[in-house]
């Protein structure tokens, strides 16, 4: 599989407190990676650095085979990266439709109506983003990513504030993007949903990252289970994933 994005040996400290010391993130075309870790472990920092929204203290970011010494968000966005931050992506004073049309006009891609249908937001396309509920706004944000049809999507907590019914819609939308060759990274604490969605799991802990392999392999990693999942949840996940495997 083609390596689309690589953030290598990333280090970052805030006010003398080291958050990342040697974190690596590798994202392949057509694959959904789940970046997982406890609160404050540096997941969002790593995504911010990979996208160019934040500069690392050391380490390099390579996007589509081109190494960037000082990557910037807008430059990577032009090359096909889309970043869904954990909140506040859309302008509250503008409508959802205005955002979707802006993407379609800017890149000459995307079917705005289809993106709206996929994320179940057709009924409030003409409402201002500031008037939407948190969950509706989140779905609208995901819809902008679908409309963009990027080569690489970094989604920080895409399922946050989304109800169980619409989670499956969003998961399907992300799967659809991935099936078209988009490299996707998701974060979050909705472990059951994201384990079901992801192809691989990357664990962020103690300032570094570990590639744990498939979700089934990750759930059986004793250190990951003990430190993050908790024993009971790990056992349940292994059972769930085992029952899903024959169906897929």
């Amino acid at each position, binding site marked *: 599989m083609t390596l689309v994005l690589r953030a290598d040996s990333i280090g970052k400290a805030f006010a003398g407190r080291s958050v990342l010391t040697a974190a690596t993130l590798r994202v392949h075309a057509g694959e959904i990676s789940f970046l997982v870790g406890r609160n404050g472990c540096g997941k969002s920092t790593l995504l911010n650095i990979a996208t160019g929204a934040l500069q690392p203290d050391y380490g390099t970011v390579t996007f589509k085979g081109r190494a960037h010494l000082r990557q910037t968000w807008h430059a990577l966005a032009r090359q096909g990266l889309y970043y869904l931050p954990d909140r*506040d992506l859309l302008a509250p004073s503008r409508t959802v439709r205005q955002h979707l*049309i*802006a993407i379609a006009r800017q890149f000459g891609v995307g079917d705005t109506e289809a993106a709206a249908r996929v994320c179940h937001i057709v009924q409030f396309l003409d409402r201002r983003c500031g008037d939407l509920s948190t969950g509706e706004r989140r779905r609208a944000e995901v819809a902008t990513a679908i409309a963009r049809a990027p080569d690489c999507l970094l989604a920080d907590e895409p399922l946050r504030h989304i109800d169980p019914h619409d989670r499956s819609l969003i998961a399907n939308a992300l799967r659809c993007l991935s099936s078209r060759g988009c490299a996707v990274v998701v974060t979050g604490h909705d472990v059951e949903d994201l384990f079901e969605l992801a192809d691989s799991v990357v664990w962020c802990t103690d300032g570094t990252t570990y590639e744990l392999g498939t979700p089934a392999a990750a759930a059986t990693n004793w250190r990951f289970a003990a430190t993050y999942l908790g024993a009971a949840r790990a056992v349940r996940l292994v059972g769930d994933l085992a029952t899903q495997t024959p169906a897929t």
Partner: protein
Amino acid sequence: MVDLFVRLPERSFAMGLLLRGAMLWLLARLLVVSTSAAVSGRISGSLLPTTALAFALGVGALGLLDARRRNEYRFLANLGVSQIVILMLATIPALLGELALGIAGVR
């Protein structure tokens, strides 16, 4: 190749930045005139060319801050628009306004 370095935002976002830049310049100018009137007792809107340029850049910086406050900056970054371009768009109305005042010879 130009697109690699400068990408303008989509029309409605660009118009928004230009309009808000014009509004900010107008308000800032009114503030300058009223302050100068209060201090010197006479209405004067004239600025030296370098001061006018700095003034326009200051207004542009305010426009950039306003775009960040409105959460437009993140979405525009995803559209491939840099902060320099946002600053530039927010500065253009102020520059044009100062130029117009200079040509009209406002004293």
